[in-house]
């Protein structure tokens, strides 16, 4: 498929996920690089160019360099980057440390906040959450393989709407789900 059509489809999937938090979209693949799900690269190809910056939660310079070559995006520190990439192999402590410092915008320009593209590792323990907020008709129940600690920190960073971070979660099967800053999550104890 030509890139223009591929990125268009990928964007529409992402847009639907943002508009309807909790709903899962299916991402297509076009290319792949080491260290990321190919579907993650699809998302990055759709959103990245020379006008934005990113940083991956990853110690290797290689990933940064390859993504720069793919997209032209600039690498900036965690507290300045427009996008944060969290590969599946990143550990929880690393993620929490980054999430603590990423930008959440300011009241005048709340859009100047980080978007976090996070890969969900395989075989993670899934917890059921109840989602509420704009885009959700009834309280939506979603199973998520995401540490409650991360979600708790997300809630703290998003507590002063319109400030906050938006999350794009991608699992190993290429399913994608978005948690914009407006979405509230509550764990459902079974």
């Amino acid at each position: 498929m030509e890139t223009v059509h591929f990125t268009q489809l990928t964007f529409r999937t992402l847009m639907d996920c943002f508009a309807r938090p909790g709903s899962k979209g299916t991402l297509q693949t076009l290319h792949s690089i080491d260290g990321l799900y190919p579907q993650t690269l699809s998302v990055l190809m759709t959103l990245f160019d020379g006008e934005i910056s990113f940083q991956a939660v990853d110690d290797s310079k290689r990933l940064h360099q390859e993504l720069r070559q793919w997209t032209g995006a600039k690498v900036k520190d965690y507290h300045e980057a427009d996008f944060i990439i969290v590969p599946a192999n990143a550990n929880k402590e690393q993620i929490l440390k980054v999430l603590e410092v990423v930008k959440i915008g300011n009241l005048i320009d709340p859009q100047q906040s980080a978007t976090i593209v996070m890969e969900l590792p395989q075989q993670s323990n899934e917890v059921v959450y109840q989602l509420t907020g704009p885009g959700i008709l009834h309280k939506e129940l979603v199973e998520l393989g995401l540490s409650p600690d991360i979600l708790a920190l997300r809630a703290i960073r998003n507590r002063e709407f319109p400030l906050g971070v938006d999350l794009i979660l991608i699992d190993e099967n290429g399913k994608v789900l978005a948690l914009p800053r407006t979405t509230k999550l509550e764990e459902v104890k079974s």
Partner: protein
Amino acid sequence: MAYVAVRGGAEAIEASLEHLQYERVKRGAHISVHTLQSTMRGFLDQVMSESSLYSERLASLAMKQSEGNAEEAVFLLRAHRSTLPRMYYSTVTNAREMFVLRRISASFKDIPGGQILGASHDYLHRLLDFDLLEETVADVELKKAAFEQINKPEESNLALEQLPKVMDYLRDEGLIRKFSLNNQEPKDVTKQALTFPTNRSQRLQTLTRGQTGTITSLGYAGLRGYGASHPNVGEVRVGWQPIYVALEDDDMDPYYIGAIKLTEVESFIPVDVDDDGQQVLEFDVGYGACFGQNETKAIAMSIVDHALEVGGDSPIHDEEFVLLHVDMIESTGFISHLKMPHYVTFQAKLEQMRSIKKEGNQ
């Protein structure tokens, strides 16, 4: 049914478009893009500047297609620009490297490197030349040959490259207000929306893209009393400016991609400066630059640049007033949109006015 286009609007529009095409050809005459490109320098320079697209060929095409309508020509070029990927930014362009075609200073009688008049309308008596009514291609070729017969000196000691700037002379003397070097990366206003307050790079870009007449009027207003400044034109230079692009992750020298014709103006504006508790008078520099040879626009731009830089109460010191209204595409677009049907909004208003009237009569 008239304006309420229930059905048939599409056909009417097609007919209007056909009529427009006919207007361009109905007198049966033809002009080539090549001829326009060779003879319409002033028009092309103006539309290239206002459209932020440097191509004489495309500007000539736009001129032909729009029947010489500047508003439409700029529109065509801007719209074309939106379809082009923009992969690189040039390196910092220094007008000291310009190959100078014209360079004058109103501030000094004699300047290092000399006053170079070049080609200018400034010294022309604006009398219609009726001989041109009958001019033929053969006449043009004869005149061209005659000019090219004029003896040029074999060697000249007149330097046209690496000419010093008038400003350097004043700066050496400590008469230009000192600022720390600002190496902030410019923000591209065509890729990121303006946010207020703006920085200088955003202001200069917006002004250089501005409609020539609008910039001129604003500069004039500033000069006449709606601004705090009466500048001295320090230097106007027009010439060929080399442009380079550097690739990231590449140790090679920047690549030369060509030269553009550029007008650059530095105006000197006296300002009060507090020098360690002592009031002294120093010069500020107002800056103007645009594609092609557009001296009036560049001078006016230098006045407005300085007015916005220092701020103040009158309109030309107000960045939102200036920057949000100088763009040709935006102003002509919104003015012309008034011609579109507005009957739903009008009906909503009508219903309300009737209701208010009824209420008042009760």
